[in-house]
């Protein structure tokens, strides 16, 4: 019954929304790097080769089906062997394949061999978010699925319009990766937990993020704009909810962005030294919790029995604070380490966990986290 409702709902939505129909694409993106355009060319070349072979093979097959049928009085011939013919149709495909392999090899070498990069970004996959580090600029931040998408994922059938009104549903994040145009960027890609895959179709970059190993990839974006991608390797429950958004900006805008990020970092370090009130910590902690923790431990702190522990009434959230700080900083088993969050963020999220969901643990100050690091 629920299914029937869903189907009828979907049909109405499909007919009702003109915008949805206008957005679909049939083919691979050409992208905005030389490599992505080479890949597109290879894709179309392979496609047309297949169309050509298909035309010949299916042509012969359907001609036979139409012309050589018993109902038309066709009498069966008796030939059933020809070494010459077998040689021909072994040889011709080999030649076609060689012709395809030459440009493919060239592009592959172009992709894999990079002499010199202008800058480096380290990309770390974490269940289910991306962390970006600019080691030379000293910038580091985490990029989560935007709250506006999170809010409508489970919209009821009556509220379905909410999903359709959310532009870039599941393809928007809170913190964008920002890169300068016309600059060769080397990506160092790794993971903190399971295997992820960092994929930006417009760059022609898709590379596995393996825990304990670093892979590299590179891109030189030619056009300013916003480009979206997704994690492309099953990485657990919220694999479908860790998008990638890259802003390619002018070099001047990039320099300004770097400056503002660095200033942000200084301000944050200063805020970690002062004492916060419980209300301030809980308010900030809720945002941090929903972005970083609710994927596993659930928004209401109930967890998933047997997989993700509950926050409610837990020995951790009601026990000594030092233990919980250590857990969040260093991780344990399936729980990732959250060292990349600032001391303020960690203190506030721990306080939120210890003072909400009916828990009665103590308040944790940013300075407690600083000394625990």
């Amino acid at each position: 019954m629920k299914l029937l409702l869903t189907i009828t709902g979907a049909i109405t939505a499909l007919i009702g929304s003109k915008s949805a129909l206008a957005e679909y694409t049939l083919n691979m993106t050409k992208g905005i790097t030389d490599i992505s355009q080479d890949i597109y060319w290879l894709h179309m070349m392979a496609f047309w080769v297949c169309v050509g072979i298909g035309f010949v093979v299916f042509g012969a097959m359907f001609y036979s089906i139409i012309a050589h049928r018993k109902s038309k009085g066709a009498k069966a011939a008796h030939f059933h062997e020809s070494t010459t013919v077998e040689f021909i149709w072994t040889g011709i495909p080999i030649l076609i394949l060689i012709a395809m392999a030459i440009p493919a090899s060239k592009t592959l070498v172009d992709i894999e061999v990079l002499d010199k990069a202008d800058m480096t970004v380290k990309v770390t996959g974490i269940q289910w978010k991306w962390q970006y580090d600019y080691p030379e600029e000293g910038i580091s931040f985490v990029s989560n699925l935007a709250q506006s998408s999170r809010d409508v994922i489970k919209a009821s059938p009556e509220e379905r319009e909410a999903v359709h009104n959310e532009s870039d549903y599941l393809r928007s994040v809170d913190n964008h990766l920002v890169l300068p145009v016309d600059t060769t960027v080397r990506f160092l890609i790794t993971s903190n937990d399971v295997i992820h895959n960092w994929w930006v179709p417009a760059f022609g970059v898709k590379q596995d993020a393996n825990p304990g190993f670093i892979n590299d990839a590179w891109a030189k974006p030619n056009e300013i704009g916003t480009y979206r991608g997704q994690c492309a390797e099953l990485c657990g429950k919220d694999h479908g909810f860790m998008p990638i958004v890259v802003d390619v900006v002018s070099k001047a805008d990039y320099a300004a962005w770097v400056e503002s990020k660095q200033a942000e970092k200084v301000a944050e370090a200063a805020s970690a030294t002062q004492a916060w009130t419980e209300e301030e910590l809980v308010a900030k902690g809720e945002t941090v919790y929903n972005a970083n923790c609710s994927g596993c431990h659930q928004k209401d702190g109930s967890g998933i029995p047997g997989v993700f522990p509950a926050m409610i009434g837990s020995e951790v959230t009601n026990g000594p604070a030092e233990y919980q700080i250590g857990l969040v900083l260093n991780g344990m088993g399936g729980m990732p380490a959250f060292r990349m969050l600032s001391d303020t963020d960690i203190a506030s999220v721990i306080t939120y966990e210890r003072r909400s969901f009916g828990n009665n643990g103590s308040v944790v100050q940013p300075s407690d986290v600083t000394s625990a690091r």
Partner: protein
Amino acid sequence: MSSTTAAAAHDDHHHGPEKGLLRWVKTTNHKDIGTLYLWFSFAMLLVGGAFAMGIRSELLQPGLQLFEPQFYNQLTTMHGLIMVFGAIMPAFVGLANWLIPMMVGAPDMALPRMNNWSFWILPFAGTILLSTFFMEGGAPAFGWTFYAPLSTTFAPDSTDFFIFAVHLLGFSSIMGAINIIATVLNMKAPEMRLMDMPLFVWTWLITSFLLIGAMPVLAGAVTMMLTDRNFGTAFFDATGGGDPVMFQHIFWFFGHPEVYIMILPAFGIISHIIPTFARKPLFGYSSMVYATASIAFLSYIVWAHHMFLTGMPVAGELYFMYATMLIAVPTGVKVFNWVATMWKGSMTFETPMLWALSFVFLFTIGGFSGLMLGIAPADIQYHDTYFVVAHFHYVLVTGALWGIIAAVFYWLPKWTGKMYNEGLAKVHFWLAMISVNVTFFPQHFIGLAGMPRRIPDYALQFADFNFISSIGSFAFGLSFILFTYIIVDCIRNGKPAVARPWGSAKGLEWTLAAPVAYHTFDEPPTRAEILAESQHS
């Protein structure tokens, strides 16, 4: 006096099947065991199909409607595992049990008691696998490829049951493969030479060697998982000096031969059906045998084309790209031979032929997308998208499954001694043929547009084609209700079939009465009989 005793002894030898349910538990008869395999795999096909319906219902429109993401991942994982290990593989073993002894003029399989075991392991393995749904933490949710460390450090407790089930399934497959090799090489009629054997026998003989080579590797992979999970080893854990990518190498060293395990027997089936309804001998019998052997060999040396994005060195990528593209050559030879068999034939289009022609058409489309995927730079954009999902459903559904359905319609009159309803069977064919394309063809588009696979919810630009795909899948699902009716109706009410219902069919199995006796070929066929029924005369 002595002749009476001999006749009595002879009668005793020709006992029929035992009465009651125990017949099926204790049977060592290849026909009974074939029937058991086929019904088991059909049941699993319906279970795996039900999971697919769940998946497509969730994907009908954007937003999460029916399932939590974790449960959705359980559905995709179990759909893959059940279809591969529960439906397709056992169905082909069932066909081998029924057909190989009859095709080589043998009285039964070489190792009948082991045959009984290799079947009866399956229901237990399947039950263990499905029971994980009811365990705390749910069923395995890491995809049928179960990449570490998602399947080790980060997996639910039920994973250990999954590992045990995979071990059992592996035992069953290896025993089945040993039995088929022993039957073909030792039990075929003394007058039958290797190059007289029908192609279904040839393809299964080669497949058996793939099984014996590949299944122990899978067993090794899951055993390492087991010790990583429970006994403190770190094969796949970098913090202990292991490597998660090594898991993928081991898995795909099994996994790539595995996909040919699922398609080679179908190649054999199609090579029987097309000559029958084109009324012309199979074109290029020996090149078909050599092509099958070449595909099997190549299948062992291309595994890392599933892993172009793991961070392989460029030399490795180049090698695996070239080796992969090479597979197109013997596969192409097979398709060309089938078309040449049709050429200047006198074709009719009974149901088995419709399935076979549809196989050639749609499997080739799957082959084309396979060739595109083999081009390593382009694979960067295809990898782990719906383009891959479309590709492997074209080769596994409209390839492997189509071959099985074609075989069922082709040999059903021989097995049951009855004819199915031809009109209804054609309706079923067209329903399945159209709906399967509505389901899977649009997935090429959403894959190219950038939708990753194994996600329970998607961005709005993928909505239209997902909707079409889901509607197609519901129709495809319904077509199996009609299929069930046609088979049951044939068994219960079908009109009696003659021994050779397809007048132009060749093969020793057609020399036997319909319905076929419980025991056949007590006396091996003569050289003349073998030559008269061979595929290349």
